[in-house]
């Protein structure tokens, strides 16, 4: 395969009506869709980062002694609760406000 020299990107010269890219779409809050939220028991959490690794939306954030999901992004899929080896996460139903 013939390779071309890579040119560095210059974002300022890219028109904003070509293809959508993620950097300008952070306003989309997928947390709106959630039916259940993950709740972390901080006493059980040993900060092993299993939830951080498995989260499909990569929304798990590191705190001082525990991990927890960013609820603006978390869709409530429950994978973190399912994978947590210490059963530190439970899914709780979102109640109508």
């Amino acid at each position: 395969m013939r390779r071309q020299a890579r040119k560095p990107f210059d974002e300022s010269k890219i028109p904003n009506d070509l293809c959508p890219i993620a950097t300008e779409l952070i306003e989309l809050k997928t947390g709106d869709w959630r039916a259940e939220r993950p709740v972390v028991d901080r006493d059980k959490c040993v900060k092993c980062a299993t939830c951080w690794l498995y989260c499909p939306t990569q929304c798990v954030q590191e705190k001082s002694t525990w991990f927890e999901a960013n609820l603006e992004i978390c869709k409530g899929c429950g994978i973190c609760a399912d994978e947590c080896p210490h059963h530190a996460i439970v899914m709780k139903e979102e109640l109508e406000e």
Partner: protein
Amino acid sequence: MVCDGNEAAAWGVALSRPDVVAVYPITPQSSLAEYISQFVADGIIQADLMDVEGEHSVLSVLHGACLAGARTFTASCGQGLAFMFEPYFRTPPMRLPIVMSIVTRDGITPQCVWGGQQDAMTVREVGWVHMYCETVQEVLDTIVMAYKIAEHRDIMLPVNVNHDGNYLSYGVEKVTLPDQQEVDDFLGEKSTNWHVALDPERPMSVDPLTGGAEGAGPALFVRYRKGSCKAMQNALTVIQEVHEEWGRRFGRHYAPLVEEYRLEDAKYAIVTIGSMSGAGKDAVDLARESGEKVGLIRIKTVRPFPVQALRQALSKVKAVGVVDRAVSFGWNCGPMYQELLSTLYLLDERIPAVSFIGGLAGADITIEHFNRAIETTARALRGEEFSEPIWLNEND
């Protein structure tokens, strides 16, 4: 050299130096796929040839390759194109400058493996640039030009270079092979992923979910839709510029959007598309010998639709007959006839128009068929009305 349209297309690809090609064979495109494979095996095309299991994967692979900076090519038609439709629909709004031949084939069912333009005409509204070739040489030349159009900074859209199944795919003509260095100079540096990329050095999520009725709202979606429409309009200018430059450099001049043939003093005209135009021009010449003031308008570029160029051509005549090689099911006419009607609205004076449908299922559109179309359009000029389409091969 002497070759058919499928080999000419493969030579056009070779001269454009792609990095990744993926082609799944389907009649009447199959020999094009074989030429591409042979050229890769022989080192004439120095590209990665991706063997995948079907057309959906073909175009998906090219999406990734294009995002990684590769110049890409594929070809398909008919049912293969139908299977490709999901990534096909996504290609233009991702603004990926992929070039693809559609070796046009009639739509099944009824079962049919022969030429027709139903496949390409059906997908003309998806956002790809569509150009239809008349000759084998034009197939080769247009493939190369397509890369320059697709990768133009104001365009960044995929381009379909369409040639008629059977008539151009297997039709053999004399072809001049352009010099590689001259093609390199013409095309310049390739440019496929400056705007959106799979690039570890600049991580980004490509084409994520935009807002809709809920959430962030439709404004982003609308902005990108408008961007695609604007690029299409820009293409009208760029296609002309690229064809002019090709003519200057290589000495072969093609009408980029709409070709006018013997239209100067014509009272009426036949509109054609693709390889049928050769027989159409012969029929016009014959009619001229017997004193008929008839001309021919060939539409090369179907998307973007060349409204102004066609309007200019139509303003020279007082009646028009459109020969389509496909049907518009809901309009009971050919698709180009249907679109020509929209252009007629822009004329100062209303002129009669007749829809002819011919060449379905690989049928030849002969000079005799064109004679009939010319005679019928002459009758329309004299005031006779034709509200139904005329099926040229109905009794063949």
